[in-house]
């Protein structure tokens, strides 16, 4: 789960990190009032869950409250990479002299939280990593002992000789670690951490991604979730325990297991078709899930055929069959459905489907080809 910049900054401020003062507004009036309260120049920043807000015109400088109102009016409602801006953060502007990158990620290779620090801040850190990897310093932390102050000092000194920056960066790194652990983050970053023209160090941006698996124990963070930023079908799917990603094709896919679901999508493309979605009905065997999956997929009018590819392990084929029959009864299904059931309780599952209008298939290749044919052929 992603949280907004202003929400992440709240967590930083609570831990004493220097963040320019600011507040969120959802109307130009509110933006003007906040700017008046702050005084001086402010920055109006779109709060959306995508990178590259600045390039897209979602971050604007304003010299006074009236201009803040104007900029907020322009940014609110703006579409940035498919997301509508609902709120802006109005924050005090600082005169930037130097920009740094500081981040902490869950590193798969070392199986530890890993700091990433660079003097090349304010730009896309992936590009820095690809083009000038020598400008990036990393440190993997043993989570059993936590990070020690000398470790973050070492990292800071590897990045700069400036004592003021070393001090500010060390504080930022310690704070990142605290927030990472306290929120079960998978990523927390400040890009940029800046040194101002008068020598102060400020965290002017913040990004925080939380491990969905740990949300059950973070009520406060879970409440920060911005449902308006997510695809409604993906929300509904998640609530039903399904993993769903909308794609552009016309063959709806309902599969159990992420690997098989990806392989099924790949196979649709291999045979010249185009998958309408990724959908993993998950590891349990609940007929309700099948009903929800069907509903979500049938809402997409470009879907011309549905392909069930079920290989039963922990999911029982008879449960999937029961769900399929129930879904068929509950809704008016106008597109052809191809069903492939194999694995645990496959005989029971197949028997239950006998006599229905569903198109059976034995192998995955056969099922995909049949679905493509029924969807009107390869495109």
């Amino acid at each position, binding site marked *: 789960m992603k949280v907004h910049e202003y929400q992440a900054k709240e967590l930083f401020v609570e831990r004493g990190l220097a963040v320019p003062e600011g507040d969120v507004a959802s109307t130009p009036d509110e933006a003007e009032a906040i700017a008046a309260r702050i005084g001086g120049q402010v920055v109006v920043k779109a709060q959306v869950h995508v990178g590259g807000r600045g390039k897209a015109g979602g971050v604007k400088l304003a010299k006074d409250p009236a201009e803040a109102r104007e900029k907020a009016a322009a940014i609110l409602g703006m579409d940035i990479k498919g997301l509508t801006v609902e709120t802006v953060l109005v924050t005090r502007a600082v005169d930037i002299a130097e920009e740094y990158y500081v*981040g902490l*990620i*869950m*590193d*798969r*290779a070392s*199986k530890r*939280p890993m700091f*990433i620090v660079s003097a090349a801040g304010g730009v896309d850190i*992936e590009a820095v*990593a*690809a083009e000038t*990897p020598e400008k*990036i310093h*990393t440190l993997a932390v*043993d*989570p*059993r002992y936590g990070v020690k102050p000398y470790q973050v000092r070492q990292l800071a000194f590897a990045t700069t000789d400036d004592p003021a920056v070393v001090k500010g960066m060390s504080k930022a790194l310690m704070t990142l670690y605290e927030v*990472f*652990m306290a929120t*079960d*983050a*998978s*990523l927390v*970053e400040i890009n940029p951490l800046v040194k101002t023209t008068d020598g102060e160090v400020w965290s002017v941006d913040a990004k925080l*991604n939380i*491990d969905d*698996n*740990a949300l*059950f*124990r973070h009520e406060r963070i879970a409440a920060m979730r911005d449902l308006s930023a997510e695809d409604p079908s993906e929300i509904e799917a998640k609530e039903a325990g399904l993993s769903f*990603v909308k*794609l552009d094709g016309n063959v709806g896919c309902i599969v159990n*297991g*992420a*690997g*098989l679901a*990806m*392989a099924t*999508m*790949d*196979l*649709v*493309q*291999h045979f010249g078709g185009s998958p309408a979605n*990724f959908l993993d009905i*998950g*590891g*349990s065997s609940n007929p309700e899930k099948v009903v929800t999956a069907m509903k979500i997929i049938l809402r997409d009018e470009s879907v011309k055929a549905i392909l069930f590819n079920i*290989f*039963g*392990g*922990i*999911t029982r084929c008879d449960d999937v069959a029961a769900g399929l029959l129930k879904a068929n009864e509950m809704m008016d299904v106008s597109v052809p459905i191809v069903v492939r059931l*194999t*694995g*645990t309780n496959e005989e029971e599952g197949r028997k239950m489907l006998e006599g229905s209008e569903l198109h059976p298939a034995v*192998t*995955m*290749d056969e099922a995909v080809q049949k679905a493509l044919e029924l969807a009107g052929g390869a495109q």
Partner: protein
Amino acid sequence: MSVFTDKSSRIIVQGITGRDGGFHAGQMKEYGGNLVGGVTPGKGGQEHVGVPVFNTVGDAVEETGANVSCIFVPPAFAVDAIYEAVDSGIELVVCITEGLPVNDMMAAYTFVKERGARLIGPNCPGLISPGKSKVGILPGHICREGKVGVVSRSGTLTYEVIDQLTRSGLGQSTCIGIGGDPIVGTNFIDCLEAFEADTDTEAAILIGEIGGDDEEKAAEYIQQNVNIPVVSFIAGRTAPPGKRMGHAGAIVSGGKGTAESKEAAFREAGVAVAAKPSDLVPLLADAYAPAKEALQKNG
């Protein structure tokens, strides 16, 4: 000989009185696995699927001599279950549960390694050595005893490949689902090393997917250390970028993590890459004579 478990493995199920735990404990027993007990706190003294239930793993180990545990407890308690199993002397812990907090797993991973135990998973289907042992949820009836090792990050895609091997007349030595989480106890290299050392395994199939760089590392390892023929498949060519893949994850993998990167790494290492799952067995036949014979015999 087989990989990680055999007929002498003494298996317990943590979470045996739950729906899935109970169902699959029964399936493991039916398959001929040596299921010696189960654990559910507060239900010690009861009997479930014909084996005794204990309150703690410690009790189960003491009473039954268990050395393998299969975990089905809910995600909020599964990391604790891993610690309990390892701390009680279990040598092989197979965690089926999906949805474990990743940061908890970082510390648990180090604990398991330091104790010298082996963890498979979490978020995995477990492993099966057909005719010898099954720990987890892999459907036994699709397997057949033989000489091909299978290792995969997926669950059901693994079944798909096992099924195709069996239909082609090719049995399996050991099939291992290592799990789909970013942090898993056993990786591709661990399994390839075990396959290479196993006298029953003559060839291997590796099934990877997008994300991380475990496949790239495996490709390098195969080139340097593996003599048995290996063929591969990577799932996720059509997966849209950025979905469930953190921006920072791309930094550490240095542009790796795509299906294209993994496929290229395997090809460079001389490992054939299947365009679709059903091409795996024909590809294996090119590198492994018994597969060719089996295909010719079974059409």
